């Protein structure tokens, strides 16, 4: 961009410099011509003044000389008339001549054509016209006309005497009829006087500069005066070629050729019968142009170079640097950092641009955030839906004495591909399954829902377990264009016989712990994954579980969990944890919680895959010390309190803690049982039975109480809480029971399934 800008700036500045130079040149030319034109005007006026002055002087000198001539003629005539005898007295005549300043005095005898007496003794008796007539000067027409004009008063001759002096001879008659007076004046004196008075003065003012001048032209077009002497007497058209074209252009500056030199001239006609032409050679007219041009061009060059660089610099500082900073911010934004603010405030335009970008980014960000929030909302909804289809209360069937089952799943993302299921098939037959859809996230979650539903439906159909699995495999193979598959461990347990029958479809090996034994990973018949290959046969196998036996199922999210260094959790580590001596009496829920905590420590909370565990524990029907069955009668309360307190005492707590717990738990039990008695039996004559299940869970250390009754559905967790701050006069005498239970226990859940209210209270023992 900077290069393009500089190129264009260079072109623009160059063109501007050229135009400005050209205009300036034209302006200088005009100025030169204007200057010359003014000069010509002034010269014309000066010349006119000088000519007028010389004319006047010429007239004055002519008058003076005429006066001298006439006076001398009259004086000498008077003297000769009075003293006719003087014609014999040379000395007297000579004295008269010298006193009057006359060159020569002749007294002539016209009849005899002789000189009677002359101040020049050599002319005595000579013919009158012994002087040679002198030629009139060709170069001095003014003087010639002056001589001619003298003759209008007296006859005049212009001669050369024998001394080659130019003389002017004036004649005057005397009283004596045969005598004629002739006076001779020195013509050179006349000419000098005349010249001094006129020509030199004019000539000196006819010069203009080095090469210019003023030509004075007579009406007939002949140049009569000029500085350029060679032109005097020449015709104007000879000197100025192509002049006739412009003869009408009075006072205008004309471009002409004067004697082969390109010149400028102006033509001024005057009222004195002559015209003036002021001229000057073009080279002199434009003499200043070269200097001005040089200075101007250098000045322009420097000016435009300065303009170029300063503009370039300013654009860089004001525009390009700002743009570069904005671009840098935009690059960060483009890289995904929407927190970047464009803060370019070097000028209002950039401020506006920055604000525009910022508000656009902000709008984009809020749009993305709202989209993300919407996506998160959708995902949360999907997670809720997915988790809601899995059994979430454990033990799921608290009143079943033979079987306890706990499960837990933690999706790596919002939704996952792992699932478990646990449900009753018939009175004594329960189904337990754990499965893992390849991949995770939304695609896995969708297949998981399908697989779970298919397995659930198939198992409930009552067919043999292997047939169920085969039909689900075929179902999942249909239209499985994505080649995703499911590994599953599906088992049924007959709680009456302890028969645990299962099919392993490509799933992790189960862990089994026999009562008084150790946890072991059991090699079972491997089967193909579900949804991989159609029309496969699966085989089931079975164990007989004895009271106290436990089974632990998990997905590869457990065994293949890795720590930040990439080390795998592994089955051996899982087995070691389960076999810790401290875990010997852990129920299934505690085992799962322990493994989950160990996994979180191991992976530092970064689960790469969904993690799912199922723990199952088989008891005999004789194992009844955590169950108490009573009828819903108020007098049964003490039995329940004794039963619960006996359970608490098995938790091996400190006496003080035990006493506190007993007071809290007893209060809760009293109020809960009172509620069940009063609400569950309302308006009913039937016998309502209450099963109380009390157990100590070791990890975390908790007392878990279940109240299971077949009374009317009543959800105490939905009860409105009393206002404990109102004055005692206004307080109702009820409604406190559930409030106290909630306050005195750590967790309370309620559900109604299969015609029974199941209320679970949890009290932390630590």
């Amino acid at each position, binding site marked *: 961009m900077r290069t393009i800008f500089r190129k264009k700036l260079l072109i623009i500045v160059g063109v501007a410099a050229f135009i400005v130079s050209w205009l300036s040149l034209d302006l200088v030319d005009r100025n030169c011509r204007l200057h010359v034109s003014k000069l010509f005007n002034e010269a014309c006026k000066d010349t006119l003044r000088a000519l007028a002055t010389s004319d006047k002087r010429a007239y004055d000198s002519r008058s003076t000389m005429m006066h001298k001539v006439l006076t001398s003629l009259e004086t000498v005539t008077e003297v000769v008339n009075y003293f006719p005898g003087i014609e014999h007295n040379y000395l007297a005549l000579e004295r008269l001549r010298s006193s009057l300043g006359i060159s020569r005095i002749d007294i002539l005898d016209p009849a005899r054509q002789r000189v009677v007496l002359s101040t020049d003794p050599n002319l005595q008796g000579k013919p009158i016209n012994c002087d040679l007539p002198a030629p009139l000067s060709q170069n001095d027409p003014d003087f010639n006309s002056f001589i001619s004009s003298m003759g209008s008063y007296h006859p005049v001759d212009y001669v050369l005497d024998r001394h080659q002096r130019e003389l002017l001879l004036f004649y005057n008659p005397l009283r004596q009829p045969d005598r004629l007076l002739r006076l001779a004046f020195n013509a050179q004196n006349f000419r000098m006087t005349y010249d001094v008075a006129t020509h030199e003065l004019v000539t000196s003012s006819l010069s203009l500069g080095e090469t210019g001048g003023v030509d004075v032209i007579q009406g007939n077009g002949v140049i009569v005066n000029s500085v350029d002497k060679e032109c005097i007497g020449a015709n104007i058209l000879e000197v100025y070629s192509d002049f006739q074209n412009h003869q009408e252009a009075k006072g205008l500056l004309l471009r002409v050729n004067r004697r082969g030199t390109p010149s400028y001239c102006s033509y001024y006609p005057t009222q004195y019968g002559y015209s003036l032409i002021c001229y000057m050679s073009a080279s002199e007219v434009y003499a200043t142009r070269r200097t001005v041009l040089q200075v101007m061009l250098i000045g322009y060059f420097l000016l435009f170079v300065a303009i170029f660089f300063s503009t370039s610099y300013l654009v860089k500082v004001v525009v390009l640097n700002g743009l570069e900073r904005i671009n840098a911010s935009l690059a960060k934004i483009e890289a995904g950092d929407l927190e970047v603010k464009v803060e370019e405030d070097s000028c209002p335009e950039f401020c506006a641009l920055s604000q525009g970008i910022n508000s656009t980014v902000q709008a984009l960000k809020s749009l993305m955030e709202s989209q993300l929030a919407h996506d998160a909302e959708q995902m949360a909804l999907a997670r809720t839906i997915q988790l809601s289809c899995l059994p979430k209360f454990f033990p799921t069937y608290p009143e079943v004495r033979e079987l306890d089952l706990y499960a837990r799943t933690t999706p790596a993302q919002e939704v996952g591909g792992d699932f478990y299921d646990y449900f009753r098939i018939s009175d004594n037959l329960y189904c337990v399954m754990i499965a893992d859809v390849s991949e995770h996230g939304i695609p896995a979650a969708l297949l998981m829902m399908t697989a779970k539903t298919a397995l659930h439906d198939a198992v409930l159909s009552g067919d043999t377990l292997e047939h169920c699995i085969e039909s689900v495999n075929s179902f999942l193979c249909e239209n499985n264009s994505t080649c995703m598959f499911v590994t599953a461990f599906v088992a049924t347990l007959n709680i009456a016989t302890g028969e645990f029958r299962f099919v392993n479809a490509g799933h992790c090996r189960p862990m089994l712990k026999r009562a008084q034994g150790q946890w072991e990973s059991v090699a079972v018949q491997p089967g193909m994954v579900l949804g991989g290959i159609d029309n496969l046969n699966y085989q089931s196998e079975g164990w007989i579980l004895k009271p106290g036996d436990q089974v632990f199922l998990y997905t590869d999210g457990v065994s293949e969990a890795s720590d930040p260094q990439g080390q795998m959790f592994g089955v051996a580590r899982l087995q070691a944890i389960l076999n810790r001596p401290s875990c010997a009496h852990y129920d299934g829920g505690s085992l799962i919680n322990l493994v989950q905590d160990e996994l979180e420590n191991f992976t530092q909370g970064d689960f790469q895959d969904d993690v799912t565990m199922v723990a199952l524990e088989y008891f005999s029907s004789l194992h009844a010390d955590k169950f108490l069955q009573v009828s819903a009668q108020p007098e049964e309360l003490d039995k329940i309190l004794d039963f619960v307190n006996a359970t608490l005492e098995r938790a091996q707590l400190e006496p003080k803690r035990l006493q506190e717990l*007993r*007071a809290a738990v007893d*209060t809760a039990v*009293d109020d809960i049982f*009172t509620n069940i008695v009063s609400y569950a039996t309302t308006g009913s004559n039937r016998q309502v039975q209450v099963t109380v299940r009390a157990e100590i869970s070791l990890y975390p250390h908790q007392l878990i109480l279940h109240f299971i009754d077949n009374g009317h559905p009543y959800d105490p967790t939905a009860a409105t809480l009393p206002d*404990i701050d109102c004055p*005692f*006069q206004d307080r109702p*005498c009820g409604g406190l029971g559930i409030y106290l239970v909630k306050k005195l226990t750590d967790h309370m859940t309620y559900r109604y399934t299969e015609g029974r209210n199941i209320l679970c209270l949890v009290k932390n023992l630590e």
Partner: protein
Amino acid sequence: MEITTQFVPAEGSGAKDVVLVLRGRFGNNSASEVESALKEAMGNCRSLTFDFGGVDYISSAGLRVLLMAKKSLGAGVEVAVVNANEVVKEIFDISGFSKILQVR
């Protein structure tokens, strides 16, 4: 539930200070016993004191009895609970009864 009622005649007025010494579970099943014992004892009563030294716990039914006693005696008569264990005191706190009764 064992209930022992003690009367301390107040000097000069003919009124009396009543002390109920309770032992055992003050729950739903024993609330009516305490209630009937109270009815006998509350006549011309200047103050009412429950000695909870032997009380294992108090349920909402027990609280109801205390509230009824307080209501029937009115604001002028002090109703106090003494020697209660920590959990019972906590119950009085969380139920708001410690604002109504003098729990010592």
